């Protein structure tokens, strides 16, 4: 082949690339095989099994019995499932924006080189690395009607104690507060990384042009942090739509069905009542919900995400 043609053929690279040898591929596959095996056994396998189970009635003790779309039809008519979807969406819609706004403000505040700032940052990050079960138990005690710290402080202010976890109107907000508090650290760290990536000359130019702090924050900081915000939105939504431990530990889904979430109801149907087929169908509906919301966010991200 003419050398010029070779350049064109190989994209301008005059050195012909050699295909990996067969034994090199085998070594490569061998190194990634533990991960692939784990992926197949613990991820893809259960997902495929769940698809199949969602079309069956299975109670662990007898063989699965094919029932077609009955589980899905029953879910559409199930008022508790409707309620758990609403609770989950309501939880997500409030928790994510609140978490993002608070963590942004705190990240801006913590992004300063003052004495003790490392200690403060650690304090904010600690809840994130603590297990959700431990945090939920702790907050259960904080919310306790008779002995909780929150009611204690309310008493000091002359106010009556509040039934945080046993009032149907307050139980879900109480769980949200705990979740926001726990998740702040992670978001703060992401925002701080984002803040440090913003070129300083932009701030300097803005100051020279006489921009106010609020103007700088609104027109420089927020737009340039939008990729980070978008990432938090997606990850936060995926996590919030699967909220479980908080409802399980703090309220058991109650009072009534006030804190039933999709995953809590899925657990109850599958592992308490042994309706594994029904629970699998619920899992797939949750997957579709998460998928659609994520696609929706991606589609509209170009309107508010600005990449440098």
């Amino acid at each position, binding site marked *: 082949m003419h050398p010029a043609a070779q350049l064109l053929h190989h994209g301008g690279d005059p050195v012909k690339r050699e295909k990996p040898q067969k034994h090199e591929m085998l070594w490569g596959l061998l190194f990634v095989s533990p991960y692939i095996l784990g992926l197949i056994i613990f991820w893809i396998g259960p997902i495929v099994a769940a698809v199949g189970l969602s079309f069956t009635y299975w109670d662990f003790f007898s063989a699965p019995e094919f029932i077609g779309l009955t589980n899905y039809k029953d879910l559409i008519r199930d008022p508790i499932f409707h309620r758990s979807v609403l609770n989950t969406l309501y939880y997500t819609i409030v928790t994510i924006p609140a978490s993002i706004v608070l963590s942004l403000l705190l990240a801006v505040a913590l992004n300063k080189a003052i004495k003790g700032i490392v200690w403060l940052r650690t304090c904010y990050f600690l809840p994130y690395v603590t297990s959700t079960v431990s945090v939920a138990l702790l907050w259960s005690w904080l919310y306790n*009607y*008779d002995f909780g710290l929150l009611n204690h402080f309310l008493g000091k202010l002359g106010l009556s104690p509040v039934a945080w976890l046993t009032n149907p109107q307050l139980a879900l907000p109480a769980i949200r507060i705990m979740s926001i508090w726990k998740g702040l650290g992670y978001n703060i760290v992401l925002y701080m990384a984002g803040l440090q990536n913003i070129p300083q000359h932009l701030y300097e130019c803005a100051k020279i042009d006489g921009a106010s702090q609020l103007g700088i924050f609104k027109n420089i900081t927020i737009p340039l942090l939008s990729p980070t915000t978008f990432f938090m939105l997606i990850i936060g939504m995926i996590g919030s739509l699967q909220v479980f431990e908080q409802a399980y530990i703090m309220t058991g889904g109650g*009072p*009534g*069905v006030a804190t039933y979430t999709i995953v809590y109801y899925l657990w109850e149907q599958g592992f308490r*009542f042994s309706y594994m087929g029904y629970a699998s169908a619920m899992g797939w509906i949750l997957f579709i919900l998460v998928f659609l919301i994520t696609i929706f966010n991606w589609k509209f991200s170009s309107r508010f995400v600005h990449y440098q």
Partner: protein
Amino acid sequence: MKSTNINNITAVSSDRTFTTLTPLVISGVRVVVIWANGGEVFNEDLTECLLEQPAAEEAIQQIYDWVNEKHIAPTPAQAESLGWAAFATGKLAMSFDGPFMIALYQDVESFQWDVAPLPIGSAGRATTLHGLANVVFSETKHPEAAWKLAKYLSQDNAQKYLADNNIAIPALTVYSSDFFEKLPYGNGESCEEVFLNAVNYARMFPIAPHYNEWDTEYLRTMELVLLGQTTPARALPRLSQQITRIINKP
């Protein structure tokens, strides 16, 4: 302590926080109040829930009144702090319990307690009989070994062990008295009298199919009743329908 009429339960001495823990949170005992009032939870063949019938509704209204009118039983918010050992820790004056709690109460030092039959209702005495049953799974792969174990558990050594450790009153009556021997307050005789006599008017706890599911449905609804979000009269008809649907599932 003498038995009392169920309608006469009122606040007792001030050194105890509440008179009694609402039996709605104790699944094995809540039916007692219904039966004592002449009501039923299910029909005979366990295919229909009868909670919406007047006698049962009246019984649940009584429990509602204990919490929200007479204030002798804790609300769900207050029950949060009580814990499962509320009686043993002095937060309750009375507790709807059974012989299964004796082992715990015996371990609590300086705790003075006694036993009385459950209060009489308008239809007389009622209590549930649960028992520890040993069952062999019909599809077990080891039927002989399973049968051997079940047989051992019903024989002398195992029955005496149950009695000596206050796990349960043994089914072999020759060892029944052993259960009460170690009770510390000279009340062994009266405990024995109360529990053994109760067998005469006890009924099996109604285990309709899909117990976990209908029990959860029941507790969910009753929680809202106790919180004052709804009344027994409004909640029970719908609850009965839901439980009937659940127990008739395949």
